[in-house]
């Protein structure tokens, strides 16, 4: 079996050659940021936006910062201007049922015109109606009607009074009504005078008074009827006068909106309301009590109240719009989406009317596109439900949340719902999309299309040019220095390092744009006009330095031997594994000592981490795989009569992942064979039951972690790391590591099988089964088999002697 060669320096880092670029700096590039490698997502966006059926709304999924919103906005910018401008919408007073304001649909730009026209109408009515009602014609007519009533009433009384007077009886007004009494010379008879009359005379008077009272009662019964008739006549007169005053103005208005039947219908009800309530337009004496309370109904306030009643509350004004609206709602609270009904406080009471209806993002985006961050939407109470309801019912119904949940008990409105025609685009993380898909049955009905954005771009010509354009666009937008091509190349290399894959570039635009801004800062400090590669490198180094406190503390403890990591000698049953730490946003690697001890037993491998519940399930699985490997390789002909224990030394927190399983196997093999392991190597890689070494994550950080320790102790040229061969494509190592490799002071070995690794680690061949099924005696495997045989024999003997003892 041939051993793997250490990797050449070229394999450790994929460089980006600045000479490949046709531009000298990003100033030479123009055009918007164009997302590359997102064809799948673009296809989905185009499909969702193009299909007109319900429920084909879009969920754009992918990690944050990958430019989903930018990409969608760019796409919409190409299609939205070509779409028709949607209608204007406004709310108007419902004169019959003020609690249910009516919605009016108008052609684009007409709502604000209507609003202005209505203000002008009210202004005109404030002049026209008072002048009509103060006209002599009206005054005379009204006076006539009232006097007619007075005359009618007075005539009736006068006739009765005359009739009474003929009988020497006076009609007298009492404080509460009327009464009849006998009189003499204009004065009522005194009681003694009356009593001095003879009985017949008294009875005659009493009879007469009784008749007069009956006649008076008949008149009394008539009076309310006459009053009613009089009021009806006055009302009729008022209506006629108001109608006369209002008609010409309304006719003019109706003429302007003749083609809009809904508006004409509203005008009809409006006209009737103005005529019925003409007295609102007449100037009134302010109520002194209201004046004291500061509620004066002065001319100004009166006009304000009138304007409110006849105002047009323009909810959507598309007068200046070209094409369909594209709205991004930054705070998708329920009321920001579907609108709200506000209240004003007056004398401690909350009041509202249709003018206090506020539109939401759904109103503004109606007929176009609405973008919402899914996470923010879900964080807002009831907002997601409100959005779904609107999409399901295809209408926007404004409901006051406070009212809905009885938080405020006051008069509120139920505005007429507005039909909804919209494409909603939710933007969010993948996990959110999958969770919604699983747990919300409505979601898949309403968001039928998913635009799955890639996390990575290919590290090819297109990808590199896309990066250059991104840098150029950020520089222009944020007014930063432009990058020379060397700096662009360095950013691209860093983009590849972020992905942990030398064939890919990160699509996480946020990280890239942050790096661009940070590099600009260092270029400015160096007083450079263009950002150079050195500035980018400084920004990367500074970023690492800012977050390296913990990493340095661990390394310091290692150098002081507080954490025991041997990088010089050879030890049996001991190996350097590599672990990744991720505090905050940055991750780093550091070696950890793994040890294995064996004793007589029943074939089990004890994972001490698992025993103390410090090992995660994947780690435990990796250890169990080791048992599988050992059993399959060494316990075909004899029982595995050992008990092995594995531990991550000096680990004080949990361990997770199976990337150390190959290292654990090497430690076990060393412990079983008694062959020491070279401690100047560190190992990473998982292993399967056949002994194949498999890929792991964070390979760059792990190598760099071991390199940093070795470098701090002094590179001997022996030190190196064994990595899975399948991880070679992921290598994008730091320049100091690559340089050390170039000088032969540090090595990386790609390993495909555990036998390769053990030979590299021990310098002793692993050993291959011969034809008779035995491993060569001097090989690691041979020594393991011998050891296992010895242990099995000891067990057998021990068991036999124990049985004899029992007998």
């Amino acid at each position: 079996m041939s051993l793997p060669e250490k990797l050449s320096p070229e394999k450790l880092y994929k460089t980006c050659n600045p000479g490949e670029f046709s531009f000298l700096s990003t100033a030479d590039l123009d055009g918007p940021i164009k997302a590359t490698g997102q064809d799948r997502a673009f296809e989905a966006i185009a499909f969702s936006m193009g299909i007109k059926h319900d429920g084909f709304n879009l969920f754009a999924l992918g990690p944050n910062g990958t430019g989903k919103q930018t990409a969608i906005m760019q796409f919409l910018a190409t299609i939205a201007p070509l779409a028709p401008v949607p209608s204007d919408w406004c709310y108007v007073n419902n004169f019959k049922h003020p609690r249910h304001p009516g919605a009016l649909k108008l052609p684009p730009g007409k709502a604000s015109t209507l609003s202005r026209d209505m203000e002008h109408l009210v202004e005109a009515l404030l002049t026209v109606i008072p002048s009509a009602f103060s006209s002599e014609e009206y005054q005379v007519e009204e006076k006539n009607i009232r006097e007619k009533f007075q005359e009618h009433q007075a005539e009736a009384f006068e006739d009765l009074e005359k009739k009474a007077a003929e009988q020497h009886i006076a009609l007298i007004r009492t404080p509460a009504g009327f009464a009849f009494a006998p009189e003499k010379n204009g004065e009522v008879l005194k009681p003694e005078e009356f009593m001095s009359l003879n009985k017949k005379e008294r009875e005659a008077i009493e009879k007469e008074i009784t008749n007069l009272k009956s006649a008076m009662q008949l008149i009394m019964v008539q009076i309310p009827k006459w009053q009613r008739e009089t009021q009806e006549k006055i009302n009729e007169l008022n209506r006629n006068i108001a109608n006369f005053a209002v008609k010409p103005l309304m006719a003019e208005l109706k003429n302007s909106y003749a083609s809009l039947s809904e508006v004409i219908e509203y005008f009809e009800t409006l006209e009737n309301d103005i005529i019925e309530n003409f007295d609102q337009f007449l100037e009134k004496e302010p109520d002194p009590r209201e004046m004291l309370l500061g509620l004066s109904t002065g001319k100004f306030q009166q006009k304000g109240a009138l304007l409110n009643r006849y105002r047009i509350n323009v909810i959507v004004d598309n007068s200046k719009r070209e094409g369909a609206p594209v709205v991004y709602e930054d705070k998708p609270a329920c009321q920001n989406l579907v609108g709200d009904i506000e209240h004003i406080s007056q004398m401690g009471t909350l009041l509202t009317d249709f003018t206090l209806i506020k539109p939401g993002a759904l109103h503004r985006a109606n007929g176009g596109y609405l973008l919402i961050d899914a996470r923010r939407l879900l964080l807002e109470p009831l907002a997601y439900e409100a959005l779904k309801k609107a999409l399901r019912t295809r209408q926007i119904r404004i409901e006051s949340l406070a009212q809905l949940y009885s938080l405020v008990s006051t008069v509120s409105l139920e505005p007429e719902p507005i039909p909804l025609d919209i494409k909603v685009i939710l933007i969010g993380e993948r996990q959110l999309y999958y969770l919604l898909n699983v747990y919300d049955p409505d979601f898949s009905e309403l968001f039928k299309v998913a635009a799955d954005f890639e996390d990575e771009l290919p590290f090819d010509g297109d990808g590199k040019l896309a990066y250059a354009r991104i840098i150029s666009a950020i520089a222009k937008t944020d007014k930063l220095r432009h990058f020379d091509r060397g700096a662009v190349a360095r950013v691209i290399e860093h983009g590849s390092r972020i992905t942990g894959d030398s064939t890919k570039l990160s699509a996480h635009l946020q990280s890239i744009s942050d790096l661009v801004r940070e590099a600009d800062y260092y270029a400015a400090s160096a007083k450079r006009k263009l950002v150079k590669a050195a500035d980018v490198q400084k920004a990367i180094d500074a970023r690492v330095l800012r977050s390296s406190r913990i990493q340095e503390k661990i390394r310091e403890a290692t150098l002081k031997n507080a954490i025991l990591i041997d990088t010089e000698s050879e030890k049996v049953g001991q190996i350097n594994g590599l672990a990744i730490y991720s505090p905050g946003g940055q991750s780093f690697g550091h070696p950890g000592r793994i040890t294995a001890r064996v004793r007589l037993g029943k074939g089990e491998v004890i994972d001490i981490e698992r025993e103390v519940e410090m090992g995660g399930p994947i780690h435990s699985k990796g250890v169990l795989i080791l048992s599988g490997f050992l059993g399959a390789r060494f316990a075909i002909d004899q029982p595995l009569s050992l008990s092995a224990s594995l531990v991550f030394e000096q680990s004080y927190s949990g361990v997770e992942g199976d990337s150390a399983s190959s290292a654990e196997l090497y430690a076990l093999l060393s412990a079983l064979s008694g062959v020491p392991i070279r401690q100047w190597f560190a190992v990473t890689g998982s292993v399967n039951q056949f002994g194949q070494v498999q890929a792991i994550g964070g390979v760059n950080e792990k190598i760099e972690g071991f390199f940093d320790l070795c470098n701090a102790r002094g590179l001997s040229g022996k030190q190196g790391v064994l990595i899975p061969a399948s991880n070679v494509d992921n290598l994008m190592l730091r320049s100091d590591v690559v340089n050390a490799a170039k000088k032969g002071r540090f090595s990386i070995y790609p390993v495909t099988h555990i036998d390769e690794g053990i030979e590299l680690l021990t310098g002793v061949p692993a050993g291959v089964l011969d034809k008779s099924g035995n491993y060569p005696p001097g090989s690691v495997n041979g020594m393991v088999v011998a050891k296992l045989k010895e242990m099995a024999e000891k067990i057998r003997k021990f068991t036999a002697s124990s049985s004899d003892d029992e007998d």
Partner: protein
Amino acid sequence: MKLLIPPEEHTILFRHITVALDCSPHSLASLTAAAELARKMHADLTGIFVEDINLFRMAELPCSHEIRMYTPEPEKIDTLQLERSVKIQAKKAESSLQRVAGECNVEYSFRVCRGVVTGEVIAAALEADLLVLGRSGRSPSCRKGLGSTARKALAEGKKPLLFMRPGIPAKAGPILVLYDGSEGSNLALSTALALMEKEQILHILILAESYEKSLGIERELSQNRVLADTVAEYHHLPPKNGKTLERYIRMAASGMLVLSDSMNLPRESVHELVRELDYPVLLV
């Protein structure tokens, strides 16, 4: 021609004004007009409320019943209840007086007396320089013309007398004065001038036998220094009967009419005019 009262004495025309109060709309109009005049003249104001003796007599009669607007059957009048009701009316009248006098910032007094209304009002007004009363009171049938108290005051020659009606304030519109060169009309003109508010227009209706004579009077008046600062409009009418005059005045639709019954016109015609004309009238 000389005016009887020189303008510098206008302000002392009325020192004591008496107004008859009975809580009717006419009496409220009278109260407002009286208070405004009192303010203008720096006069004091006396409100008089008469508890109608006829009411109390009637209450004591066995056959007396009250018919109310919203009560189905007539009810026996309870004397005590009546006393209370009349007292409440008096209180109401007093508080109206208090309010209106307060608004006009004039001194006032209030008197309540019991007796026959007409007699008591006229007797109370003996000490006053001006009696202000509504064209009609609370009597049920006086839709037009004068009520009994006003009729009696007019008949007994009590002067000056201001008859008010609701709806037309005394100071609304121009003042119309009847002038025929007689002593009485000079007094009317002087009084009208004394009552004029700033920038108020004075309409002078000249009653003369011929148009030439009428123009002559106009010329004389317009040259009179007393009228120098007044915006006066002259109208001319031959003195005919009261009906014609009434029609003319109605057509002119002025505000308060000031006239005298000691003019060349027969006293009865003047009284007829006062009775029929449904305007605020000041008879001097």
